[in-house]
């Protein structure tokens, strides 16, 4: 039993099943991010927790009591919407106090609570303004203030930052994280932005087509994606997925991968799982993060499995702190991350270092991770 339990929750619209048997347990104080491409069902799941959508089957429990039939306003949750949904006819203060008023809290108490939260969010000077007189970032703060003032058991965020410009989004992301550190309220946050998911969460649930793909800490999701979808979706640039074949190498079993020239090279597997030993000849997909294929200077010196590689550089992209370099490996274009001042140039051969201790293997048919 966790603080917020989602048990076998399914959602159907008519005959269309949009969520398939979702099971998630959120511990008290956790910051869970639901992430996935649009249409994956993450917002539907959030709305079901809020009580704005009916649960077709399964159960949602808060503090071990079933809330499927509880009215949204009685669930002790507060939600921040993508469009902020500030009441246009009320002042900022009125917006924040409305929920309290509906719950029968006295005027003096309302004012005190609103004042406290306004100070926390630094929106005290805005309390008498109308939402139309606020900037995007200010509206965002007010929307959060309206949720905070209720002091709920669970915070729900529905893509709260997607209407902000890029710089403000990064700032607000930090604000939300600080706020969570300070208050420790259990939070479920929906986004399609995997960077938001990685930076904010204590745990991430990756969803696609109504199925939960993987749930785990940001590091787990990043290092050990459970399938090809998660590997490709999380991380920017995404994980390189390289077709390879298991062979007997000089030094245990290895992977045969083609270089740009068409020549084959062998990459030794680091501590291969026993199951792979008798699978020589099997086609697999090798997953390597861009930072695991890098120049000799940037390579992790503590890695026990650095392997050199000489390959042709197709193109380089300078991004300030990093240089992204494209090469061909296994017949696909892959991205490697090098230092910002790396001097490799396009159309020349460069030596690369592959950190095989970070390698993951997927089965090309089932698309699941096998090692």
């Amino acid at each position: 039993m966790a603080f917020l339990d989602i048990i076998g929750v399914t959602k159907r619209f008519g005959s269309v099943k949009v969520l398939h048997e979702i099971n998630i347990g959120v511990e008290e104080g956790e910051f869970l991010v639901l992430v996935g491409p649009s249409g994956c069902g993450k917002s539907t799941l959030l709305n079901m927790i809020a009580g704005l959508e009916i649960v077709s089957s399964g159960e949602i429990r808060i503090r071990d009591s079933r809330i499927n039939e509880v009215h949204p306003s009685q669930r002790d949750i507060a939600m921040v919407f993508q469009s902020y949904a500030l009441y246009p006819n009320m002042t900022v203060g009125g917006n924040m106090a409305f929920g309290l008023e509906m719950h029968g809290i006295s005027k003096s108490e309302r004012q005190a609570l609103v004042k406290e939260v306004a100070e926390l969010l630094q929106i005290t000077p805005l309390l008498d303004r109308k939402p139309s007189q606020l900037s995007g970032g200010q509206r965002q703060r007010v929307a959060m203030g309206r949720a905070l003032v209720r002091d709920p058991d669970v915070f729900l965020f529905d893509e709260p930052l997607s209407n902000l410009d890029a710089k403000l989004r990064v700032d607000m992301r930090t604000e939300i994280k600080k706020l969570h550190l300070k208050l420790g309220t259990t939070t479920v946050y929906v986004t399609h932005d995997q960077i938001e998911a990685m930076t904010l969460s204590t745990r991430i649930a990756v969803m696609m087509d109504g199925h939960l793909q993987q749930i785990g800490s940001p590091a787990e999701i990043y290092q050990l994606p459970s399938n090809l979808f998660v590997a490709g979706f999380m991380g920017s640039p995404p994980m390189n997925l390289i077709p390879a074949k298991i062979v007997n190498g000089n030094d245990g079993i290895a992977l045969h991968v083609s270089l740009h020239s068409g020549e084959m090279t062998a990459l030794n597997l680091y501590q291969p799982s026993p199951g792979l030993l008798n699978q020589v000849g099997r086609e697999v997909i090798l997953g390597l993060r861009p930072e695991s294929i890098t120049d000799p200077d940037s390579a992790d010196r503590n890695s026990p499995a650095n392997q050199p590689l000489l390959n042709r550089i197709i193109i380089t992209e300078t991004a300030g702190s990093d240089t992204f370099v494209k090469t061909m490996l296994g017949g696909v274009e892959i991205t490697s991350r090098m230092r910002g001042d790396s001097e490799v140039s396009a159309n020349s051969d460069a030596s690369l270092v592959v950190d095989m201790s970070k390698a993951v293997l997927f089965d090309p048919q089932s698309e699941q991770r096998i090692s």
Partner: protein
Amino acid sequence: MSQSRDNSLPTSHFTRALIYTALLIFAVYYLLPLFVMLTNSLKTLDEIRAGNMLALPRSITIEPWLKAWDSAQIGVDPSGLKPYFMNSVLMVIPAVLISTMLGAINGYILTKWNFRGAGVMFGLMLFSCFIPFQIVLIPMARVLGLIGLAGTTSGLVLVHVVYGIGFTTLFFRNYYNAFPDELVRAALLDGAGFFRIFWRILLPSSGPIIVVTIIWQFTNIWNDFLFGASFADFDSQPITVALNNLVSSSTGVKEYNVHFAGAILAALPTLIVYIVSGRYFVRGLMAGSVKG
């Protein structure tokens, strides 16, 4: 150079002169009847008979206005238009308020509390906007008789409310359609119920469309002649019917000045409503969305 000229396409003086001439002609064409009515309502009957229609009054008299208001012969009574004006007021105010309120609630339900068959329901209500008045005359008379409201002001209020709901619902539905659903969801989470959300969140943001609906309903109901002539008794007839009786029940001489004054009196309330809230009308028609 004025700002509007800056934005307009470059045109020659000749084109411009042509445009202004045409506009002027249309303006005169539209204003001429009002001018004739106003000037002639201020002339004595002798002057009307002697002079031409377009001439300004030689001596201004308000006698025709006073006569039209409270002593002109209407049907059998020399009561003037006053009691009928009051009948119209007593009919139009409740009819406009009730139909606007119902339209607002209908629009709210149709857009924010979607239910199975809402589309069909709305389609049927929209259809009612296109039913010609004449078709419902006999069934309506029967219904009014059955519920005991035949020949009363309340009966006319009912008829106009029923007929107005289609339009008022259409107005409010389209307005609330652009109103973000997330606001309703946020209010639900805040603990507001069905009517509280309507009363506290939607209605305060509905100013422009309320003005549009009131003007529309007021004009239609005030100007209605057919229902008034069909369903009202002598003591509940609206001013439009009385005006017709004033003009048709002459005691020998046709008092054109009194008729003109009476016609302006009958048109005055709608004119005032337009002048007072006309700019909200245009604004409301164009207002699509509420920025949250």
